[in-house]
């Protein structure tokens, strides 16, 4: 069955290998909406945007039309995500999008990364977990070239970051967006200008087009109406969502999220997890999430990497980490005081 939007225009979701179904098709396949409702939503999108549409935003249109509630949409996307997550296996034949080979980093005479070898699979959500000070944020900064390893190599695709000129590094960074732990929104700009900033600086887009894109991103993170607020007027959850909108506005291939739920209450934490899942299901970006939300994060990622004292203890599907027999991993997941990690 051919539907408008599912084949005539490649969506961002269809772009990723191994995901032949568009978002709308997935919603139909899961019984969340009927094919008729999907057709109507896609027609409405076309009418609203002068003949063009983005299939990954069809969920919003379905909500606007009253075919499905926002929470039901998110639940439906999560259900589909969970199926994919449970079926995920590490495929050694597929080249990872980011690779770290024997990376060593010494900070203040401490070996923060100690010969780290890890791979980030493309078009999947990877969670990096571990004790505070275990090298997670440093790992993330190496991936995007904000830090240089003392030894070893960081590969992004086929390119070794350490061998790139500053211009080439800037080009490679164009593939990334990074959501910083504190949001890193510019204090002197309101939410709209913060989100618009990378577009204004890095693209030659007209202001009208920038406005359209920014508002669409703010809509995706449910921040419409907040665009004139300054960062100091936002709550922690809003700040994270605004920063997520800024990270998404440039359509990155790789999205790095540094503790997106740190310091948030459980409801907002859950909402951010749903938002990440929603973003992934719509866009199929490669995502790397640093999180302390254990064990909840295992529900929201395909792949888990456990870092402990600068070394990779585990790297594999999320369903396997919970059954790991490694005493450090077991203690970390359970949060036990007794075990090989002594904190008191």
């Amino acid at each position, binding site marked *: 069955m051919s539907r408008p939007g599912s084949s005539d225009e490649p969506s961002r979701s269809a772009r990723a290998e191994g995901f032949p179904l568009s978002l709308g098709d997935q919603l139909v396949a899961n019984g969340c909406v009927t094919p008729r409702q999907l057709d109507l939503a896609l027609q409405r999108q076309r009418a609203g945007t002068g003949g063009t549409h983005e299939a990954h935003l069809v969920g919003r249109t379905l909500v606007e039309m009253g075919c499905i509630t926002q929470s039901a949409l998110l639940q439906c996307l999560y259900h589909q995500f969970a199926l994919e997550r449970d079926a995920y296996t590490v495929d050694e034949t597929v080249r990872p999008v980011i690779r770290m080979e024997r990376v060593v980093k010494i900070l203040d005479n401490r070996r923060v990364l100690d010969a780290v070898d890890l791979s980030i699979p493309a078009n999947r959500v990877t969670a990096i977990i571990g004790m505070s000070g275990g090298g997670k944020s440093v790992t993330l900064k190496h991936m995007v070239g*904000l830090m240089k390893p003392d030894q070893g190599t960081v590969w992004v695709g086929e390119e070794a970051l350490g061998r790139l000129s500053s211009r080439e590094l800037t080009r490679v*960074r164009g593939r990334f967006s990074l959501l910083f732990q504190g949001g890193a929104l510019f204090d002197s700009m309101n939410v709209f200008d913060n989100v618009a900033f990378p577009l204004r600086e890095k693209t030659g887009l007209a202001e009208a087009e920038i406005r359209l894109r920014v508002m669409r991103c703010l809509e995706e993170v449910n921040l419409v109406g907040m665009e004139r607020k300054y960062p100091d007027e936002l709550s922690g959850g809003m700040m994270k969502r605004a920063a997520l909108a800024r990270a998404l506005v440039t359509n990155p291939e790789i999205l790095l999220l540094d503790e997106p739920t740190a310091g948030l209450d459980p409801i907002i934490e859950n909402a951010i997890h749903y938002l990440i899942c929603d973003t992934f299901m719509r866009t199929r970006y490669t995502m790397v999430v640093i999180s302390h939300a254990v064990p909840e994060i295992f529900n929201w990622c395909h792949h888990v990497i456990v870092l402990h004292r600068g070394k990779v203890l585990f790297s594999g599907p999320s369903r396997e980490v919970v059954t790991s027999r490694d005493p450090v991993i077991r203690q970390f997941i359970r949060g036990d005081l007794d075990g090989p990690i002594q904190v008191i």
Partner: protein
Amino acid sequence: MVDFVRYIGSLTLDVIREMGRLFLFLWEVLRSVPTPPYRWGNFLKQVHFIGIRSLFVIALTAVFTGMVLALQGYYTLSRFGSEALLGPAVALSIIRELGPVLSGLMVTGRAGSALTAELGIMRIREQIDALDVMGISPLKFLVTPRIEAGLLAVPLLTVLFDVIGVWGGYLVAVRLLGMSGGTYFGGIESAVGMHDIVTGLIKSLCFGLIVTWICTYKGYFTRRGAEGVSQATTSAVVMSSVLILICDYFITSIML
């Protein structure tokens, strides 16, 4: 004794390392000046912050500096019956020395400390890293416009300081002490040459560079949270002020 020698050696190495980083920082900034994009809005915003918003404090400092110079000068010169030289004494002191030095110090206190604090907070809140990740050079975006603005604003503020300072001297000498206005300004006209004005302007250009260079450098490399910002700000103000005075001596000795 060995510990003391080790301490001195380590201190010397730290100073050399810091100087190397300082000059590399300046070199990177200078290299970024001719490369596009040119953010005129950013530059004008900084000119407004460093220049326009320093006007009041510069004017206030200038008028009282001129007044106190006239007062002190009058009583000193009157001992030798040379009151007629008061105008040139006030004008030369201000144009050659006090104008550029005090303007530089005032800008350091008012705008330089704010530059350090602003960049320091941006650093610890990862906003500078965010620029890097977006592929936007933080040096070009944040530092270059501030240094360019300093190079423009401080000489202009110095000219203003000179004019108001001479006028402050006039208030005391002519209005308060009853000296003839013609004597005051006539002496200035005959004693002050273009060389004096150029010397003052060269100094102010150097001080504008010193203030913005040191203050942006200290802010850009701030570490260790709020305490680090406070330390960086203090250090920037002290270092800029001391460098202004040292530099003033050397320029004076070269251009005398």
